[in-house]
Structures are given as structure tokens and as C-alpha cells.
């Protein structure tokens, strides 16, 4: 293999890391007060919910699917919290996760058993889910005061914010799931060639329902964390456009939308990259117009480098 070919291949596999490092360097040099602990904490805390959603999204994308309903599921989780907070945070969180699980499993059922294309199956929940959340919450934002619940969003363990810990833990679990388990292997096999996977006797429907259910639960976890951090249940805005952020992060991280492959660490890096991009644009006080165009350019550049060559 020629040297340039090796180099392109390397860049292709590691492009997102290079981009993250480059952006960190840029900020270290040109952004005031960037190299502070507080700043890094802020970036991680803001990235945590996106990462949690993106992990689930990566699994779904691995099966050659996509889940547009994650933002709506976050809103549903947010709407559920105040209803049950009276019975204690644990009950409220459990209920929110159960709703996420149910929503995800419902998506999975539509995709696997009914055979509806993922993008449309989950579009229905995207359209209706947030409305449902608002109906549950009677259109109201509810401020939350339960200290135990709020600690989830603001507390830390040994200086590491709890939400970041949870996100990292979940990333490790999802990485283990994809690389080390039968379930993970079956998932990518289904994404690679569903017909062949069926003929190989894999439990295709069970895996699909499982994957969407996991994605739903993770979206609910993200919804719970974001709600706690906001100290309010805000179903109208919670997780708005989260589906696009998550998909972008996953794809920028090197997981192809065509399925058959899941890159967990890449997804983490994709989330970090997009978070850094947002932070950089805000810190340099660029107008929204320029900021959006720069984001577009960075997405294209990152995906261009990591693209699969024919």
C-alpha cells in the first residue's frame, strides 16, 4: 500500500479525533479562558444528554434504521417527572424510563413486526409524541424543587458531575454491548443484510424491538437528566431537534447511515466535536447566520474525511 493510501485510510478512521484535537488547539490559542476546569466541565455537562441519546441512535443506525422520535421521547419523560415526583424521585425517574421503554418498544414493534420503514415509523411519534407530552403537562412548564432530583443535574462525585458519570458509564455499557455480546453482533448483522440474518436464524424481530427499546430508554434517561439540570419540566422545548443533533454526531463519528457498523467511541467523539463547535461559535460571538453556515461546513468536512470509499 502506498504511503498516501495508508494516510488517507488512517485519517478516514480517525478523522473525528483529529478534528477534536484541532478544535481544542484552536480554542486553546484563540479563545479567552478556554483552558479552565470550569469550562471543560461545562462542555461535558452540556454534551452528556446528547451523548446518551446518540448512543441509542448509534445502535438504531447500526440496524440500518433511524429514530426520529428521540426528542419527543425526551419531552415525554420530562412531562412524566412532575406527575410522580410527589412519590419520590426514584418513582418519577422509573416512570419516565418506563415511558421511554414503551415508546421505544412501540417504534421497534412498528419497524420489526409491522414492517414499516424506520424513518416513517418514528416520524409518527416525532409528530405526535411532543403533543402528547404537552397534553400530559397541560401545556405548562413546571418548575421542580425536589433537591434529591435536582442533585442529578447539579451534583458531582469527586468533582465529576453526576450526569457526565452516567453518560460515560452508559457509553462503556453500550460499547461492551456492541463489541462483546451476541446481541451486538446480531444487531450489526441485521443492519448489514437483514434477509441473510433472518435466514441465518437470528432473532431479528426481537433484536430490533430491543434496539429501539434501548434507544427509547436512553432518550428518556437524557430527558430526565436534562430536566433535572433545567430544574423544570419543559415538554414544549425539551429535546427539540435532538434527533438531528444525535444523528449528526453518530455519522460524524464514523457510523455509516447504511447500517452494519456501530462505532461507540467515534460517537462519543462526534458528540464532543459538535459540542466544541457550538461552544466555539458562541464564545466567539458569531451571529447566528455565520454560525449555522460554519456548522454546515464542519459537518461536511468531518463526514467527507470519514466517508467510505467505493
Amino acid at each position, binding site marked *: 500500500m502506498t504511503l498516501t493510501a495508508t494516510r488517507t485510510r488512517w485519517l478516514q478512521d480517525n478523522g473525528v479525533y483529529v478534528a477534536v484535537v484541532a478544535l481544542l488547539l484552536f480554542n486553546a490559542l484563540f479563545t479567552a479562558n478556554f483552558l479552565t476546569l470550569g469550562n471543560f466541565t461545562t462542555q461535558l455537562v452540556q454534551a452528556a444528554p446528547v451523548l446518551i441519546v446518540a448512543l441509542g441512535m448509534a445502535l438504531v443506525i447500526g440496524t440500518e434504521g433511524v429514530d426520529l422520535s428521540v426528542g419527543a421521547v425526551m419531552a415525554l419523560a420530562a412531562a412524566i417527572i412532575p406527575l410522580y415526583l410527589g412519590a419520590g424521585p426514584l418513582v418519577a425517574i422509573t416512570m419516565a424510563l418506563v415511558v421511554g421503554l414503551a415508546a421505544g418498544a412501540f417504534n421497534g414493534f412498528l419497524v420489526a413486526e409491522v414492517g414499516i420503514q424506520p424513518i416513517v415509523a418514528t416520524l409518527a411519534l416525532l409528530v405526535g409524541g411532543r403533543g402528547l407530552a404537552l397534553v400530559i403537562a397541560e401545556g405548562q412548564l413546571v418548575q421542580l424543587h425536589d433537591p434529591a432530583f435536582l442533585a442529578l443535574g447539579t451534583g458531582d462525585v469527586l468533582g465529576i458531575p453526576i450526569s457526565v458519570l452516567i453518560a460515560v458509564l452508559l457509553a462503556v455499557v453500550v460499547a461492551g454491548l456492541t463489541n462483546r455480546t451476541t446481541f451486538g453482533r446480531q444487531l450489526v448483522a441485521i443492519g448489514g*443484510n437483514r434477509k*441473510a440474518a433472518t*435466514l441465518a*436464524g437470528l432473532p431479528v424481530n426481537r433484536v430490533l424491538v430491543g434496539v429501539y427499546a434501548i434507544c427509547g430508554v436512553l432518550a428518556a434517561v437524557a430527558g430526565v437528566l436534562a430536566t433535572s439540570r433545567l430544574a423544570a419540566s419543559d415538554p414544549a422545548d425539551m429535546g427539540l431537534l435532538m434527533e438531528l443533533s444525535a444523528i449528526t454526531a453518530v455519522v460524524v463519528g464514523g457510523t455509516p447511515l447504511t*447500517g452494519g*457498523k456501530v462505532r461507540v467511541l467515534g460517537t462519543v467523539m462526534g458528540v464532543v466535536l459538535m459540542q466544541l463547535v457550538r461552544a466555539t461559535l458562541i464564545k466567539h460571538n458569531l451571529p447566528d447566520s455565520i454560525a449555522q453556515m460554519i456548522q454546515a461546513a464542519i459537518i461536511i468536512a468531518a463526514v467527507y474525511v470519514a466517508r467510505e470509499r467505493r
Partner: protein
Amino acid sequence: MPTDPVIEVAGVTKTFAGVRALDDVDFTLNRGEIHALVGENGAGKSTLIKVLTGIHTPDAGRITRKGHISTIYQEVNLVPLMSVAANLFLGREPRNRLGLIDRARRSADAAELLTGYGITADVSSPLGTLAVGEQQMVALARAVEADADVVIMDEPTSSLEPREVETLLEVVRKLHEAGIAIIYVSHRMDELYRICDTVTVLRDGRSVHSGPLKELPRIELVSLMLGRSVNEIQKHGTTAFGEDHYAGREPVLEATGLTSKPRINAVNVAIRPGEVVGLAGLLGSGRTETAKAIIGALPLDDGTVLVAGKPVPHNVKAATKAGISMLAEDRKTEGIIPNLSVRENIVLAALPRLSRFGVISRARQDRIVDTFITRLRIKVSSPEQKVAELSGGNQQKVLLARWLCTEPKILLLDEPTRGIDVGAKAEVQALIDELAREGLAVLLISSELDELLDGADRLIVLRDGAVAGELEGAQLTREHVLGAIAAEVMDDADSN
């Protein structure tokens, strides 16, 4: 024959991520000749063809082409969702006065044209609803009708049964008479000797011989392909099936009354442990459907499947669990998982057995994978190589390995040697034999009559989705089988 090259290749090299698929290859095709291109699986035949047609750009070397080339690629390359007629005329649709596609004429032309190739299917139905062999004939018709100066055929007969093969060879002969040059790739020696003038042998990406075919003894050709001495090969023989072995035990598989309208009707299949039962029949007679019905991949109107006397629910998962495995006919769409590595593809179906609490054991995996790569002589750069990068034959071996490592009780093989080279074919056949001796029940579907006659202990002949007869013991001769199949032709004659 005067040399009048239409294609000239000099010093072509093509490398894929570490694999040298073509290494300094020279090749010349003269006007009006039928040129055989042979070699083991992975020798570089398909790659050379793709370089010739411009799909791949060579790393080095020179290619000169004269005239229009039309190609039938190894894997059927048509659009399954489009109608048969649209596929046939894609890119050269008949137009009406307004310059718009004349759909009525397209359908009429297509129907007429295909009748000449023995295809009577509705030309307005999606191509994907045709059996693989029929699709292959459509691809052939498409390529031949394209007014080409050169026609390249990469294993065109691999999914055809005898009658279709004759049709195809007839077409080749006509093209030859019209002065069209042909490159013909096949692993079937008989065909090559019947129609080809010259031969080029590829081995490990290098062209090791080029010259007239007729003068080259068959055994020598094989020796050139395999790179082994003539003596060594003579010891082994050509087909590797051993003696028939008949087991006196109870059937392990009993499928009764399998019906899925309109494709199969009340098909019964019973196989005893250690028995190899062959399914014979014409293209589209329902052999694939029967196998799929047994494994639960085809919705059934009626019928039951018993394994060791116990009924099996009608779905693939349950069937796999009960010990049935099926090697699918269409490896591209129903077999390989292209994104995954060779290792992952091999262990896919056996995963539950190789893992504890859902966590996979890497060591056990590697052991199995190494065993099968060696045993089936799968040509890979490493088990981590993507399966999509393998040559067609090697992919087939990977799939075979996938099923063998599930340690099935019943193995359904749909065209197991399709596209496999002589050497490997013998190995696969020997393997089937060996497995049967170990007590496996095998259902063998093959379009190659010899393979069926040699390999099967008993033959079930299908016709129009129903069992037309069973042949056993002394009846297992070419004449008997052709007779059973030919009955259809006579039926047709009667009804007309």
C-alpha cells in the same frame, strides 16, 4: 485464425487493500474468438473483467479496446424492483414519435425476445419475482441484444440447469457465427471444451498460460489452474463424492404436504441421518421454495415439518434451533453480511453456542474460524478481512463454514458449489460426503446433474412445484433423471 485483437491488455496490475488481485497480466482477445478465462476462486477473473469494462481502474498497465463491450457479471446485476421489460431495455428503451418511452412496444418486444430464451414470465412483473436462473437468462438476453462487438460472460451458467445451459450455449454459438468475440468464464470444464477456442489461465492474479484450448488436455488445464502437478491431481479424480451410503435409521427430517400457492404444492421430503437426498427439476420448478419452506422462510398454506418426530414451528429461528440449516442460493442478497469480516460471518449463526450469558468468547470463535478457513481452503488475507472483498467462490465457502459450525442435524444446500472452482468443488463434495457419513442429513439442490447423481443417495424430481417422481439406486442415471424432467416437455406438448 488471423489475429485481429479487439481487446489487448498489457501488464495490468490491480491491488485492493493489500491483496494483489491482478499482477502484470497480459491478455488478448481476437475478433470472432471464444476465449475461456479460467482459474481458481480468487484467481482474478472477475477483477480482470471489471478492469476491461472500466469498472475498476488498474494501478498499472495498458488496455486497448475496440468496439462496444457488453457484459454479464458474475452476480446477477439487474434491478429487482423494476419490471422485466424495463430491465431488458434499460438505457435503450423504444421511443414513440414524441420521444417518450413506448411502453406497449417495450413489453411486446420483451415478451417476444424472452420467449426465445425460454422465459415465459410476465414481463411487466418485477424482475425480483423471477427465480435466479430466470434472472440470469434475462441478463443474458440483455447483454446479447445490446449490439456489442464483444460479449463477456462471467459464470453465466452457474445458476442454470441443463436445458437452460443448452439454450445459452446455442446463443453463444449464434453470436460466434455473427463474428462477435466472447470472453467466457466458467468452472464447468465440459462447457469450456464444447465452445471455446482459446484459453487464458489465471493463477493468483498472474496469467500463467494462454493458447488454444482444444490441444490442451483437461488434466493439464486443471494442473495449470491449481498450480499442482498432473500426477498429484490424477490421484484425486474429478468429483470427490465417495460411495453411496445408506442409513437404515428413521428419518430425522419429515416434511409433509408443504404447500405455498402458487409456488409449491403438497411436497413431501423425508431424509434419514446420513442420507443425501437430491432435489432435481427444471428452472423454477420449486426446489428453492421447497428448501425455504422446510426452514420456515416461506409462508406456508399447509404442511408440517418434523425433526426427529417433533413438529417444528414454522419460522427460521425455531428451525435453526431444531438443527436445520440452509445454505441459500443467492449468496449476495441472502447469504453474506457484506460489512462484517470473514470471522464474524462464519460464526454468525453459531453465536449463541459460542457465548455465555450473551457475551462472546473470542478464543472459541478464533479456534472455529481457523479450523474452517484451513479445512475449506478459504482464500483470505486475514479472518478480519471484509467478506465483501472476497471472490465469489470464497464467499460461498465462508457461507458453508457458517452452516457447518452450527453443527446442524439437517443441512439444506441450495446450489452449494455454485461458482466454486474445480479444486474447491471436489473439497466441498468430499465434505458433504464426510458429513453424511458422520450422520448428517443433507438435502442437495444442484443444477449440475452429475453432482446430483454422484452425490445423492436418492433423488426427488420436482415439476411445477409438485413431486414428479423419486429415483433411487439403479434408477440414478442420467437417462432416468432426464426422462423424469422431460416428462414436462411432453406434458407441454400434449396440452398445446
